[in-house]
């Protein structure tokens, strides 16, 4: 059954060549059980490289600092690559931006003082808000002097700026924020970004708000949503009702190792590291929404399926002040003119 050693050697050599041509990153297998995975990625001895590829440089990956997540990503996020960070809806923009910025903050720990460029279209900055330097400084330790923004009215211009920026080694990271699934940002455009990021050795984070997954050249796609924060920790225990450190729910949409997974991370702004969420009981699964998405139709045929994503309004609970019927009524000023009381005279 066993193929001869010579044949296997040939196959490995060919694979190596293919990997070299494609410029793919070497992949790692999970470290054997019992051997602790070094969170800093500095220990190359533990790395077992799949399919006989050359051992990865210890610096090629940015360890997120969460054992399970790093293992699923085969060592962390590739440093010199395009990485996609998705948000399912535009209102997740805070979580998506927060996760990308915490990754940037991890990078800035190593590359002190280099600026970060955040490129966005006018649309996304209007819809999701403009980055606020005071908050970034407090939460991620990114100084206002390190921040550069580029706002382009058109996507073409934003992509051009991103391509120019991706080849610069003087930037610590480039963040490109796009809304939806535009035609322009196809496989070719992302491949160009990825190639430039690879040659410059700098990460490019592609933030996509309210976007569907589609084929791109990015080796990693993470889908980020916000998770409920744990209460603030005080000397006397957790402070009830308070909102503590920011937390994110990460699911891996695409990676080299193709290991799926969902993780809840908590960002520690003081230490500037990620912690895994310990209080598992607080985790809520957004897919298991108890509210029916569409009310059942009575006696008639089902209506045509709504186009696009259908949002579920959560149950209103005890607050009887807003019943669905009154909530749907337009305010008096927006009623049709013929229904409004006519003024005498």
């Amino acid at each position, binding site marked *: 059954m066993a193929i001869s050693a010579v044949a296997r050697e040939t196959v490995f050599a060919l694979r190596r060549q293919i990997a070299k041509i494609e410029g793919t990153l070497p992949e790692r297998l999970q470290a054997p059980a019992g051997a602790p995975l070094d969170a800093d990625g500095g220990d190359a001895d533990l790395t077992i490289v799949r399919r006989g590829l050359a051992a990865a440089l210890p610096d090629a990956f940015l360890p997120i600092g969460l054992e399970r997540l790093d293992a699923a990503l085969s060592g962390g996020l590739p440093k010199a690559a395009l990485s996609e960070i998705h948000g399912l809806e535009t209102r997740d923009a*805070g979580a998506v931006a927060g996760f990308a910025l915490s990754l940037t903050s991890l990078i800035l720990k190593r590359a002190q003082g280099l600026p970060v460029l955040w490129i966005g279209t006018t649309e996304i900055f209007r819809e999701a*808000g*403009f980055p606020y330097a*005071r908050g970034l400084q407090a939460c991620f330790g990114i100084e206002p002097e390190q921040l550069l923004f580029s706002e382009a009215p058109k996507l073409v211009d934003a992509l051009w700026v991103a391509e120019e920026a991706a080849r*610069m080694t003087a930037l610590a990271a480039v963040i490109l924020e796009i809304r939806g699934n535009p035609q322009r940002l196809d496989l070719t455009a992302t491949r160009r970004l990825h190639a430039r990021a690879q040659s410059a050795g700098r990460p490019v984070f592609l933030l996509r708000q309210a976007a569907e997954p589609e084929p791109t050249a990015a080796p990693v796609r993470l889908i980020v949503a916000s998770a409920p924060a744990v209460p603030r920790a005080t000397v006397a225990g957790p402070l009830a009702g308070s909102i503590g450190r920011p937390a994110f729910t990460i699911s891996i949409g695409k990676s080299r190792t193709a290991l799926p997974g969902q993780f809840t991370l908590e960002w520690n702004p003081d230490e500037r590291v990620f912690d895994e969420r310990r209080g598992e009981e607080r985790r809520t699964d957004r897919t298991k929404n108890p509210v029916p998405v569409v009310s059942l139709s009575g006696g008639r045929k089902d209506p045509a399926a709504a186009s696009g994503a259908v949002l579920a309004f959560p149950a*209103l609970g005890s607050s009887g002040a807003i019943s669905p019927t009154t909530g749907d009524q337009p305010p008096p000023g927006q009623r049709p003119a013929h229904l409004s009381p006519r003024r005498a005279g």
Partner: protein
Amino acid sequence: MISHRQGNAQRISALDERAEALHLKRDMGIADARAMHPSIDIVEADPEADRRLLEGLADWCDRYTPLVALDGADGLFLDVTGCTHLFGGERAMLDDILSRFFHQGFDVRAGLAPTPGAAWAAARFCGDRIVDGGEEEALLAPLPLAALRIAPETRASLESVGLRTAGAVMAAPRAPLARRFGATLLLRLDQALGRLDEAVSPRLPVAPLSVERHLAEPVTLTEDIERLVGLLATTLKGDLERRGEGARTLALLLFRVDGAVSRIALGTSRPMRDPRLIQKLFHERLAALEQDIDAGYGFDLVRLSVLAAAAFDMAQADLTGEVTDDGADIALFADRIRARLGEGAVLQPVTVESHLPERAVAIIPFSEAPRRTTPPKRPDRVQAPKTIFPPERPIRLFRAPEPIEVPATEMPEGPPLNFRWRRALYRVTRAEGPERIAAEWWREASSDAAASTRDYFRIEDADGRRYWLYRQGLYGNSQTAPRWFMHGVFA
């Protein structure tokens, strides 16, 4: 024929030779003119368009001298002091101006004199005449009073006492003239005769440095223009080096054969003199403007001007001849982006001392120069104590706070139970606050302090998203009900 409205009647304001041949005159009523010749073509006067045309011509005249001024609605002053030798003398220059204007289809009268007043008179009353120094009096003496640029009323009263030519006024005693007709008459006379200086204020600021190239064969291709920019920038480099400066603002002027002038300006983040970089920046700018620049029959004069310069520090290279400066990369990158996408394409935040969240960070165009936005702290002044826990601030802030509907709050002063933002309903699970931020009374004195006070809340909704809301106004304190706004989102 061009008509304009004067008083209550349409009158002829300008007319061409063929209309003149029909014995029509200026200021004649349109009704009379139509009665004489029913087939005349009448166009309504458009002073705005005339003004634009004159400014276009003034731009084009920039090729002769940087000091070009508008004179009323139909004239241009060109201060050609020190420029005539570039065109082969005064006569050659005047002929060049006249022939180029003629080929563009303009009927131009020009005069050249040592004083603006004399040149004005020579252009309008003699035509194509060059007046040498000292000849002003001989030029003006036989001319009518209108040549002195005086108000029509003064002219009429001078004529009523029998002074009908400029020579007669010059011969009259000065003191009675001044007493009876005002100082303006003598001022104009002295200015025309060169006894008093008259300043011609140029339309555009004069560039401290500019280099230009006249082309025998007009160029149309963008690549050719870029190459010419490179050549001009090489010439400019020497001048800048002698002055120890680098360019901060550059302007490229393209003079088209038929008189249109394109002006392309760009700014740099740090002083610059390397011709290669200047060419690169103009490459981006020209690529962005490709649609707007109409080469037409080609450009026959290309000029590169330094509008603003700043001291340029030389950088010492190391022994391998390499200068490693990341800042230079960033500056050049920002310049290229801005050259193509405009001044606001690369922005940087600057913290400002203000407690209002939207004023605490100013977003300004990227620049290398450090800006001091807050006054330096004086050590003897009492500093506000620094809080150990800085207030929580969102990571994204909406440009304008978005109004939200809040149907109910648990307590009047408390956080909302649920709210409607962008037509979606959000249920509040946890809230922190309020953090009260009052308006800056020293800026807006008129507004009601209680009505503009904001109470900020950190809100977490059922899905774990965190928002920053505020209520503007206080319950029961003012006439208007408090309103709620969404101001930012947290990570």
